[in-house]
């Protein structure tokens, strides 16, 4: 991971850094330009009618009673048809451009699983599992490497949307949707679930970290290490493994193999917890363990009601999961 890479705070579709998003921005300018022109023309005609044809006070005459004109009707039918035809052609090409793209042999495959209300991220080819922070390699000249995402849902419909990388694609249960990104700049790009998925839809945030190819390889290596076994936090680990934490969470190399909640093996490698609702710092992590609903009301993780010393121990343990 490159700590110097910038965080793009505004998820703005006008600053695309990836091929599909770039194609969309181009179409936007075409549509925006034509729409703006039409709005100006129609608005101008309304303004002209409102000023030029306003009745004068006391005027007691009826204007000429005009019923219509077939020629004019045909003309103002054909012009919109032509405009729509042209827009349709550009739309059709872009649809096929983005949707019919076949993954090249060296594409990175990632499976993104939407949960209420967090993201599970799996790299089937690399054996890496993480949550809420998607790392992808930048596609640089000479080493072009698009990332193809398979989108699955564990419960209800969610939607994957990182505006600077690609348009959104829904994450639908019992259905495998595909989308792809090919970022050309490193940095952290923000997105979030875009389909209403229940109580905490608003806090189902997603960060995409685009690493240089070298950084990405280093990150993958770090993720493959088993969880640190540190005697100082053995107490915390004992608490973690003896409570129902393990029913929902996985920590690789331990007995915790639950899949309802995020994989915690490398929890400390992520900058946020609770799918972006809070920063991943000691105080927030502790607060989250004490009562998740104070941070994210309605979250599916229960407050475990642990005594303070046990909370400290668990927090210490989790803080070692780098």
């Amino acid at each position, binding site marked *: 991971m490159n700590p110097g890479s910038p965080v793009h705070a505004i998820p703005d579709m006008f600053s695309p850094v990836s091929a599909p998003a770039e194609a969309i921005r181009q179409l936007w300018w075409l549509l925006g330009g034509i729409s703006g022109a039409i709005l100006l023309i129609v608005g101008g005609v309304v303004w002209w009618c409102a000023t030029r044809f306003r009745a004068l006070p006391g005027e*007691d*005459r009826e204007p000429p*009673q*005009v019923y219509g004109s077939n*020629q004019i009707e*045909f*003309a103002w039918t*054909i012009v919109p048809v032509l405009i729509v035809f042209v827009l349709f052609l550009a739309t059709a*090409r872009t649809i096929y*451009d983005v949707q019919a793209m076949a993954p090249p042999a060296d594409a990175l495959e990632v499976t993104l699983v939407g949960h209420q209300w967090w993201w599970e991220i799996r790299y089937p080819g690399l054996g890496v599992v993480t949550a809420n922070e998607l790392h992808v390699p930048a596609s640089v000249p000479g080493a072009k490497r698009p990332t193809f995402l398979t989108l699955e849902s564990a419960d209800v419909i969610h939607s994957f949307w990182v505006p600077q990388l690609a348009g959104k694609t829904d994450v639908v249960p019992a259905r495998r949707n595909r989308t792809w990104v090919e970022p050309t700049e490193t940095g952290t790009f923000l997105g979030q679930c875009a389909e209403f998925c229940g109580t905490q839809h608003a806090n189902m945030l997603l960060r995409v970290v685009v690493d240089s190819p070298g950084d990405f390889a280093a990150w993958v290596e770090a993720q493959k290490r088993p969880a640190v076994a540190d005697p100082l936090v053995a107490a915390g680990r004992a608490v973690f493994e003896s409570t129902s934490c393990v029913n929902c969470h996985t920590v690789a190399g331990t007995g915790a193999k639950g899949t309802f909640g995020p994989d915690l093996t490398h929890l400390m490698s992520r900058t946020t917890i609770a799918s972006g609702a809070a920063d991943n710092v000691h105080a927030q992590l502790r607060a989250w363990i004490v009562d998740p609903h104070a941070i994210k009301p309605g979250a599916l993780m229960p407050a475990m009601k642990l005594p303070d010393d046990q909370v400290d121990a668990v927090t210490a343990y989790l803080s070692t999961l780098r």
Partner: protein
Amino acid sequence: MSAPRDDGSESIRMPAPTAWPMLLAAGICLGFAGLVTNAIVTVTGAGLAVIAARGWIREVLPVQHLEEVELRPAALRARDVLPSTARVDHLEVGRDGHRMRLPIEIHPWTAGLGGGLIGALVMALVAAAIGVATHGSPWYPINLLAATVMPSLSGAGTATLEAFDPTAFGLASVIHLLASLLVGALYGLILPLVPRHHVLVGGLVAPLFWTGLLWAVLGVLNPALNGRIEWPWFVLSQVAFGLAVGWFVSRREKIATLQDVPLAARAGIEAAGLGPGRDEA
């Protein structure tokens, strides 16, 4: 309309007010509300619905229940609609007064569409000729046009673009024909509105106008064409199209007879006084 009457005793039969429809609605709604509340609610609702349905049926069968509504006394009825004092202006047409019948001799559909077809043919020939002249292949411009909708062609190399591709040929033909017919129809409608210089307007001004528009948006519309286009040749093929359509349309129209009538009439405005009037309805 409503002539006042002296005899206030007249009456009209109207459907009598009734509560049964409301009670039936209440019964049905309660019946379903029981699903989310309590079975007793369903039972009550169903019972109410049966009673109300029975009441309703009795009200309309065998003959529906009407009540006599007495007409209002004459003083309270609507006033007669009186002739207005406002004078009505008319569009003035030509020299023969505003009630003359317009000699409309335009055949916009046939002329415009026919012109569009001829123009399409001429433009295709010119474009193919340009393709042969510059790349030795008539398929080159056709493939470029198809690249508007085919991403596979938009990034293709020159060799691919010079080869024949049946899909591209089909798509390009459809796009070309549709666009030509639409523009041809526009010519048929708009050229008669222009008082003179039809060939200049249709053959040069209009093609230059849309070439300018295309130039502005082609980068998004068809990046492949945009990267490879040679504008002088493009303009030439558009002008060929415009001339062909303009020639065809203006040859079919006797628009000279309309040159001294005002725009409103040339535009085929339908208005009181412009069409044929009738003496009786």
